[in-house]
């Protein structure tokens, strides 16, 4: 018997869609916006809004179909989907995916397609022009996000191999984090970095944004259950546990290291915990979440501080240090903590699963790295990616948008 529409599931998924969109606008927008200098706050907000709008159009046009409909050729389907539902043809009021309307499913998935490129902007903040950014993001969505999402969620080869990525540790965080690193290396360091102090212009805004991200992440992880059930409930629990543990661990490491606990530290630790639990969120139990959160706080701390400073790249808002590292580590740990033997919900051979997770992470990272570089190259050659020195000094708000964030 075909499943019928379940209004409970549908209500939850409608809510989750709103929650995850909220994570980008204005959650991530404020989190990142507060971290940059005053003269660039609008550029960050603008990038988030623009990416939201741009990706929506691309998703409706071809993105949704290429991820979630099968390619006519089974061989090609391992790699990319088909165009049956381009322009959302066939997605009518009565169409269902499981027990929820397909329209809701498509929009829920869209919010993931939106936040993934939005995460990348943190790496090249304060120095890339708007036009080039827009072109880069259009290309990136199509050549990185769409294929990877198809590989892992749309019936592609990694899903066929048994890769477990409940809510996007690999699809979202690894792909975006690695892309961030590549873009940061490509465009180079901000003028004056690292000698010149560039403190956040408004940690207050960033805290507001972080709170929105934490709350929205319930939709991100628990919504990925596509149902209002025990899996979603446990996803909420492990998300909360991991966020809180990540925050506390980062806090205490920083307290010990630098003598003071910081606001920037606690919110970053929470985000690290959230990113790292993402791939395991539908499978792990509370014990696993405690471990994953703690590991996230510690390893992402290193990723965003020591690693970044020793290697010398300017990943301005730690897209790689937090999301890339967290997503990678969390996805590999999923191979352990998703297992019933470790308090999770799945049954599998742990050794093999960890290997599959590693393979998925590495191939996604590699694909993202190469395609990101290419997409940025195209944008750079056409429109010029890095703004010139005068523009960078004046700030993107004035030079790209002729607006000021604060008029007092």
């Amino acid at each position, binding site marked *: 018997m075909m499943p019928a529409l379940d209004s409970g599931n549908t209500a939850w998924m409608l809510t989750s869609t709103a929650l995850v969109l909220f994570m980008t606008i204005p959650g991530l927008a404020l989190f990142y916006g507060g971290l940059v200098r005053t003269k660039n706050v609008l550029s960050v907000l603008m990038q988030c809004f623009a990416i939201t709008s741009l990706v929506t159009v691309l998703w409706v046009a071809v993105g949704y179909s290429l991820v979630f409909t099968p390619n006519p050729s089974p061989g090609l389907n391992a790699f990319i989907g088909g165009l049956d539902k381009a322009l959302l043809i066939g997605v009518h009021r009565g169409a269902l995916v499981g027990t929820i309307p397909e329209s809701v499913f498509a929009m829920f998935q869209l919010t993931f397609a939106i936040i993934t490129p939005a995460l990348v902007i943190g790496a090249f903040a304060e120095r890339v022009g708007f036009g080039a950014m827009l072109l880069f993001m259009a290309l990136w969505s199509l050549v990185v996000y769409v294929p990877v999402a198809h590989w892992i969620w749309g019936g592609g080869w990694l899903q066929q191999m048994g890769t477990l990525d409940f809510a996007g540790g690999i699809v979202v965080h690894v792909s975006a984090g690695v892309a961030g690193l590549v873009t940061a290396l490509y465009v180079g360091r901000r003028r004056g970095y690292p000698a010149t*102090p560039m*403190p956040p212009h408004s940690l207050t805004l960033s805290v507001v944004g972080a709170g929105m991200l934490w709350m929205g992440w319930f939709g991100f992880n628990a919504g990925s259950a596509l149902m209002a059930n025990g899996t979603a409930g446990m996803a909420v629990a492990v998300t909360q546990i991991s966020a809180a543990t990540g925050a506390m661990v980062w806090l205490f490491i920083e307290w010990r*290291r630098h003598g003071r606990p910081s606001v920037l530290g606690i919110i970053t630790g929470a985000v690290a915990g959230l990113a790292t639990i993402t791939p395991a969120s539908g499978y792990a139990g509370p014990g696993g979440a405690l471990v994953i959160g703690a590991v996230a706080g510690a390893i992402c701390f290193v990723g*965003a*501080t*020591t690693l970044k400073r020793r290697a010398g790249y300017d990943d301005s808002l730690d897209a790689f240090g937090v999301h890339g590292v967290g997503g990678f580590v969390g996805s590999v740990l999923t191979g352990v903590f998703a297992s019933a033997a470790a308090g999770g919900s799945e049954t599998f051979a742990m050794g093999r699963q960890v290997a599959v997770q590693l393979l998925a992470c590495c191939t996604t990272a590699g694909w993202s790295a190469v395609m990101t570089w290419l997409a940025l190259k195209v944008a750079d050659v056409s429109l010029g990616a890095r703004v010139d020195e005068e523009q960078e000094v004046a700030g993107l708000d004035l030079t790209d948008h002729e607006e000021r964030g604060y008029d007092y």
Partner: protein
Amino acid sequence: MKFVIAIVKPNKVDDVHNALVALGVKGMTVSEVRGYGRQRGHKEIYRGAEYQIDFVPKAKIEIAVDDAEVQRVVEAIGRSASTGKIGDGKIFVFELAEAIRIRTGETGSAAL
């Protein structure tokens, strides 16, 4: 006429203002500035990156006074702005060549 510029701690502005009002001073301009003298700045850390921030927030008070009043004004500012700790600030006194009230065109002491 003299022009007095006082750089004081921001939390002392109200005390200075009250002291000057008590003296009969009829107007002043206050602005938020940053600076340092002997007071060293402070350290800030963002995700492990340590920065020495030299400039400290201060308030600048500007007043035009009659020659006859300047001694009392300077003393009042000095008393009310003092905390006894490093960073209390400084007072500078300049010669004021002319003052004009824009609304009426009055000049000199009548404009103060």
